[in-house]
């Protein structure tokens, strides 16, 4: 996998400190390092957020220890403050920030193009065009960082990070590494007071100019088939699609291709060289016209009159593919191309969309159900539920609709506060455990300080579930799997000034009663928070297999079922289906994870435990540490 290739390349290159916050498609970089960290002798940390991850890794680098931080594209926004400053002060040892961008927003709230950050912060951007290349280029990028004493952004996309290829290894990973550096008290460099900042800006510009004007060759810059009247500049992964398109069109011999793996700053010499020979240049890049804009600027500055095309022919939104690149390339080359009509059958129109849903046994489903029932009991109408980033965002769907906003990490609390100031309705901020640690704490403090009127609900499922179950400060586990101190979310909220109610939504009735009390306090003007503790059902299932303690399985008694569909419509569990041609629902036993919410909901007591759970099965869902699980 691309992310594993990046991790391996960095380990081979001697990186000693890795810090990251999980985020698709970047997560497996730190995960792969963490697996071997203790054996190899490197530091691997899940930080509380991207800003802290960046600071930690950057700090090591300014103390002379080579380091890497990894995050998804929107994570870089969280780290943007230190990112820009680090571009001023530079580094001592090699330092990479991996920005894993997500064109098409497969698992993100936007598809921002982080190469712009390179220009903003004077940080060069290296982009691989394949998994294989990612492995090699990580080392080259670290070398670049070391040589210019400047942080380097290593920008991948979903299709590099999450693709798999065979990679031939070049080096071994040295073990028994010692991550020891020296902090050199170079105050002009590290203390960015205005006077120093101005000096450091000059330093950054000098670095920038020398990289821009450098004589660069492969693998950062490569000219294929030089001397043609038409040229294509392809950046990063776009090269793979250009290459397939040219092959398909049989047009490789007609065009010069400048393959750019260093895209920011735009390498001036190779661009001027190809523009000296070509009359027309097509820039092919994913998302924004970052290279294109700068090609125009460089040619303009040097009075070169080649015609530059880019987003006129290549889509600007969504990820690229050969499908989306080939027509533009054909048009640019003046080659006839008609794509074969895709196969179509009318029944395709009947296939409903299949968005992700909450898993069977999901604790979020249970908490959402509890919140809605409690609000109904108090006849609270029009509750505004602000939402956040995590699996629970799926609660925006029917039947819950308990996520009404979702912008960024930690946003639920700040958004709830603002809404509560200008809207009369009750306001509930719903946030996950990892997200609470990430950026929820400042918002909580703000509610107390500014007399906000929002109730906070933290969904503590003992893991960062969305990204594949990474630990966080509340789990008592470190990135490498060793025990760590537990930071209690309830304690944090109490110390800030909230009255905290803790529920276990597996016990539905009891939880509803507690949340009713919480809502009552809230309506009386108290600062209230609810912490809902129940383990992610995928994790409970894993523990069940590890410990041999079986989870219960429910079934529907056909003779009692009246086909009222309450379970189908109120629970929306993927394990409850109405088979083709049938009138009554059934529970798919292989999928049921025994939460029992459907049995609670059924007005006719038609849902029963078909196979009881093993002794102490509730602990798998309820307790933070389960004995006997590895």
């Amino acid at each position, binding site marked *: *996998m691309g992310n594993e290739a990046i991790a391996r390349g960095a380990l081979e290159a001697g990186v000693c400190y890795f810090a990251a916050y999980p985020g*698709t*498609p970047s*997560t497996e970089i730190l995960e792969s390092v963490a697996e071997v960290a203790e054996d190899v002798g490197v530091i691997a940390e899940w930080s509380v957020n991207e800003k802290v991850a960046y600071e930690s890794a950057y700090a090591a680098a300014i103390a002379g220890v080579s380091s890497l931080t990894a995050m998804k594209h929107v994570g870089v926004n969280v780290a943007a403050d230190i990112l820009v400053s680090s571009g001023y002060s530079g580094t001592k040892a090699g330092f990479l920030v991996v920005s894993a961008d997500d064109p098409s927003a*497969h*698992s993100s709230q936007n598809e921002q193009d982080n190469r712009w950050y390179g220009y903003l912060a004077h940080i060069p951007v290296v982009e691989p*065009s394949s*998994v*294989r*290349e990612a492995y090699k280029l990580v080392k080259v990028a670290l070398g670049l960082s070391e040589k210019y004493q400047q942080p380097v952004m290593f920008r991948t996309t979903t*299709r*590099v990070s*999450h*693709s*798999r*290829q*065979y990679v031939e290894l070049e080096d071994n990973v040295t073990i028994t590494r010692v991550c020891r550096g020296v902090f050199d008290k170079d105050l002009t460099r590290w203390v960015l007071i205005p006077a120093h900042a101005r000096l450091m800006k000059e330093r950054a510009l000098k670095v920038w100019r020398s990289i821009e004007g450098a004589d660069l060759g492969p693998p950062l810059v490569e000219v294929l088939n030089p001397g043609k009247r038409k040229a294509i500049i392809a950046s990063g*992964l776009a*090269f*793979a*699609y250009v*290459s*397939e398109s040219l092959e398909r069109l049989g047009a490789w011999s007609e065009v010069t291709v400048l393959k750019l793996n260093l895209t920011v700053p735009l390498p001036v010499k190779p661009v001027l060289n190809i523009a000296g020979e070509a009359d027309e240049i097509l820039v092919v890049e994913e998302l924004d016209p970052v290279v294109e804009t700068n090609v125009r600027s460089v040619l303009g500055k040097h009075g070169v009159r080649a015609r530059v095309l880019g987003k006129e022919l290549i889509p600007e939104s969504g*990820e690229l*593919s*050969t*499908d989306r690149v080939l027509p533009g390339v054909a048009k640019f080359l003046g080659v006839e191309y008609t*794509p074969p*009509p*895709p*196969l*179509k*059958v*009318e*029944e*395709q129109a*009947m*296939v*409903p*969309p*299949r*968005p*992700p*849903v*909450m*898993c069977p046994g999901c604790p979020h489903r249970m908490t959402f159900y509890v919140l809605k029932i409690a609000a109904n009991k108090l006849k609270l109408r029009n509750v505004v539920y602000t939402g956040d980033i995590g*699996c629970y965002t*799926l609660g925006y769907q*029917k039947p819950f609709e308990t996520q009404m906003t979702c912008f960024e990490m930690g946003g639920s609390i700040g958004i709830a506060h603002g809404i509560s100031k200008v809207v009369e309705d009750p306001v509930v901020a719903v946030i996950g455990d990892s997200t609470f640690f990430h950026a929820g704490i400042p918002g909580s403090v703000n509610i107390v300080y500014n007399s906000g009127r929002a109730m906070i609900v933290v969904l503590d499922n003992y893991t960062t579930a*969305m990204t*594949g179950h990474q630990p966080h400060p509340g789990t008592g586990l470190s990135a490498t799997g060793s025990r760590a101190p537990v930071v209690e979310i309830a304690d944090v909220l109490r110390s800030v000034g909230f009255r905290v109610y803790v529920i276990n939504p597996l016990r539905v009735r009891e939880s509803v009663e507690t949340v009713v009390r919480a809502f009552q306090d809230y309506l009386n003007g108290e600062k209230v928070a609810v912490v809902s503790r129940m383990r992610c059902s*995928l994790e409970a299932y894993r523990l069940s297999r590890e410990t041999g303690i079986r989870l219960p399985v429910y079934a529907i008694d056909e003779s009692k079922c009246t086909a009222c569909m309450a379970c*189908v*419509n109120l629970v*929306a569990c*993927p394990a409850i*289906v*109405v088979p*083709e041609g049938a009138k009554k629902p059934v529970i798919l036993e*292989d999928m049921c994870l025994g939460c029992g919410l459907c049995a609670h909901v059924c007005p006719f007591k038609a849902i029963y435990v078909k196979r009881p759970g093993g002794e102490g099965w509730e602990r798998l869902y309820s307790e933070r540490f389960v004995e006997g699980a590895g």
Partner: protein
Amino acid sequence: MSGRLNVLIVGVGGQGVLTLGSLIAWASTLSGIDVTVAETHGLSQRGGSLAVHVRLNNKDAPLIPVGEADHVIALEALEALRYLSYARRGAVLVVNRLRLPPPLTNPPGLDVIEGALRKAFDGSVYVYDADSEAKQVAGSTLYSNTLLLGVSVAVDERLRRVVGPAMVEEAINTLFSGRAAEANLRAFNQGLKIGFSLAGSRGAGQAAR
């Protein structure tokens, strides 16, 4: 090196779509075949629609262009229909006879889906109830993915040339251990057996199920 081959694997998150991609990647790598596999993660375990692109002998472009998949493995029937336009004319489709309607929807039934697939692909569609079979031979529907891979390898000679049965077995032993490896091997071999018999009866001009 034999020719290029594009294999699209589709299904519902949690069915083992990604695992199947990894298995094919390992098996082809063991045969010295160049492979690129593109996955989509994030919400992949959460019951969403999922497609993995496997490109054999095809340089670096990770995504299969529309109309260019030579072989499609569908772990769920609605997903086979959803991704139909990726398949080229004459592609081989191996489809699990399983329909998982997304919650609160009422999609077409299995017979309608199968009819539509046959209309588009004629003789090269193989529909089989892999879930029941996997449960019987390997103890769980979890192994329907490797079972279908067995069917695929058996019915499609081009696929078999790049991903041979022995290599798949080795890949299973690399990616799994203990009971999981055994169950996957049983499911795969049962799939092979079913596939060869389906292909055989197809050769005799019979309609296959």
